[in-house]
């Protein structure tokens, strides 16, 4: 992208996307809420929509509805489905914005949130958690998510330290270090999996990702990470527009490139790690959602980042809804759904535009 094009973009959106196209955000936000209620009311067990709505409304402050439903129904709606739907939304939002951030930082359309070792680090941590012959709970934290989170952060920190040259962080070195370390970790994971005996199936399913057991405590742990990370990325993300130039030019335009890289990398990595630790490595969302948003609304990071959050949440909630209802009471791994539904839709968008994106 040349300086000229960048100026064009900025000219096109003089006061920022938010002020000019605020109605897009409002509409999408409403859709998010609708999808949330819809997904909570549908499941393998059929609960009338009115009951779902009453149960949810009853939980709101100042609303008190006399229960006409059983305790088990309330458990299903409020303790199983709602946290699961919220978790899917959080993870979808996190992976989508992390993907958009990585693509912007690396100036590479193929970058995804797992590029620098988050997924492999988390997987290794999780597999070790599975293989340790203890079942352990630390203040609501299972052993597996804890080790997965530690593994993800350890892996990306290692990649970062390996890639650092003096005071700068060359993006190409970072990618290469990330790919190399991922390959190493993934081979260790593979070895542990094949030698894991009968728990192999469970581990493989964990690696493919699932929201099946998401509960309120998990939402409570992941929400702060995702909220803080998303706000930081949206605040600093506008600078990604300038980063699309040469780093040198960006530097000349007054951007502290090195500091920006570290802030954005840290935020994107942290929200990815928090998500992956609880639900496994769900593929595809981090690549496809940012590109879909670019195809429809353009690649200005000021709009791309918040829209990726909303669209990512919608996509993941719907994908999980399909995963748990199509073959009910049997579930389909969520990764299968994100790929099957996401890929054709993405290709459709790509063909419809027929022009270069990114």
């Amino acid at each position, binding site marked *: 992208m040349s300086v000229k094009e960048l100026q064009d973009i900025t000219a096109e959106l003089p006061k920022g996307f938010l002020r000019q196209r605020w109605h897009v955000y409002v509409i999408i936000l409403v859709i998010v809420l609708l999808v949330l209620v819809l997904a909570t009311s549908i*499941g*393998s*067990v059929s609960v009338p929509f009115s009951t779902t709505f009453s149960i949810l409304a009853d939980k709101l402050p100042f609303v008190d509805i006399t229960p006409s439903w059983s*305790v*088990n129904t309330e*458990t*299903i709606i409020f*303790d*199983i*489905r709602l946290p699961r739907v919220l978790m899917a939304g959080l993870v979808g939002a996190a992976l989508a914005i992390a993907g958009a951030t990585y693509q912007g930082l690396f100036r590479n359309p193929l970058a995804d949130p*797992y590029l620098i070792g988050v*997924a492999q680090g988390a997987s290794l941590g999780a597999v070790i958690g*599975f*293989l340790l*012959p203890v*079942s352990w709970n630390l203040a609501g934290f299972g052993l*597996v998510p804890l080790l997965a989170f530690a593994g993800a952060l350890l892996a990306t920190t290692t990649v970062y330290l390996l890639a650092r040259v003096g005071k700068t962080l060359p993006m190409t070195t970072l990618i290469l270090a990330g790919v190399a370390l991922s390959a190493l970790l*993934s*081979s260790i*994971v*593979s*070895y542990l*999996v*094949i*030698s*894991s*005996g*009968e*728990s*192999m*199936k*469970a581990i493989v*399913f*964990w*690696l*493919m990702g*699932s929201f*099946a*057991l998401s*509960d309120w405590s998990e939402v409570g742990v992941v929400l702060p990470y995702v909220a803080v990370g998303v706000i930081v990325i949206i605040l600093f993300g506008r600078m990604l527009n300038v980063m699309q130039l040469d780093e040198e030019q960006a530097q000349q335009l007054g951007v502290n490139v090195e500091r920006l890289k570290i802030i954005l990398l840290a935020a994107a990595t942290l929200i990815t790690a928090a998500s992956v630790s609880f639900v496994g*490595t769900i*593929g*595809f969302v981090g690549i496809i959602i940012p590109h879909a948003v670019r195809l429809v609304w353009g690649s200005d990071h000021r709009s791309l980042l918040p829209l990726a959050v909303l669209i990512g949440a919608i996509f993941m909630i719907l994908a999980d809804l399909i995963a*748990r209802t199509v073959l*009910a*009471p*049997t*579930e*389909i*791994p969520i*990764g*299968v759904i994100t*790929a099957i539904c996401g890929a054709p839709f993405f290709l459709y968008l790509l063909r419809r535009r027929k022009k270069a994106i990114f």
Partner: protein
Amino acid sequence: MKSIIKSTGVIILLSIIVLSLLTSCGGPSETTTPAETTTPAQTTKPPTTPVQTTTPLTTAPTTPTTTTPAPTTIEITDQADRTVTLEGIPETIISLSPSNTEILFALGLGDKVAAVTQYCTYPAEAQEKTKIGGFSPTDIDVSIEQIVALDPDLILATETHLAEVVPKLEQLVPEATVLVILTQTESFEVIFEAIEMIGKCTGAGDRADQILTDMKARIKAITDVTDQLQESEKPKVLYIVWNDPIFAIGGGTLGNTLIEAAGGINIFADTEGAPMTDLETIIYRNPDVMLGSLNVGTGMDMAYQFILNDERLAGVNARLNNQVYGVNDDWYGRPGPRLVLALEELAKWLHPELFP
């Protein structure tokens, strides 16, 4: 998805490397040289003790009992409808599945077992045997090389090995008889047939008969009672083998048959195999008894801990009435003599008043 495909590739590559490493530096195998042992069936020894007791079937007699003079060559149709021939009584036997290993040891043939899989955990003596790999649909998991080196007379394979391993064995170990025994079965009859067939092929037919008589009597003692039960008297049962995500035992499985024989209703009988299922369906179907695996993989009881402690299941009947049990998966999942233990245990849990 890409990364999954990639990692599958890595798994395959790695397992090739790892398995080849294992085979090349594996310790001295306990290969017994065949041939120079006695000619088949010289020892005609009647069984010393009748085994009609109600003691668990876990103890095998110390000496193999060979009563009938074995025919020099027998022709047999195995459970995959393959017709194979067997010359004399096999002296070196390799088992390719945990259940086959259990049957062989129950028949008192432990001394003749030359090698087993790494999952053959029972009886304890089986773990001392040479390992020829794991138990999986792909041949890379079974070291053909090591099997060839052991020079077996009889190999007990399963339907899992039909596609790749069995043809390779027929080609590379032509002097060995490969017998396919079904392991993915829900039917007691198929398991009886397997025990009988293995007994017949190994010259331990009488011992097999004793085991079968005992098994059938003990099963009948329970089903005679449970068959009389009305549907409304049968508790609804949930049996999970893993909790994250939840894998339940569905229809068409041995576990399902055991639940039904013990006078219960499997709440996932409408599914096939071991479906990955969700929590809300469990709560909705409200099981009266919940079973969780105590020993998946490395001996983790996470499935049991989950059904015992998860707050969202607190309102389920089984939890309200303290009907949550940990089970030994090997009893419930391996088609071998120990299924009787599973059935007796389960019947006591489901109907304590009928089976004190």
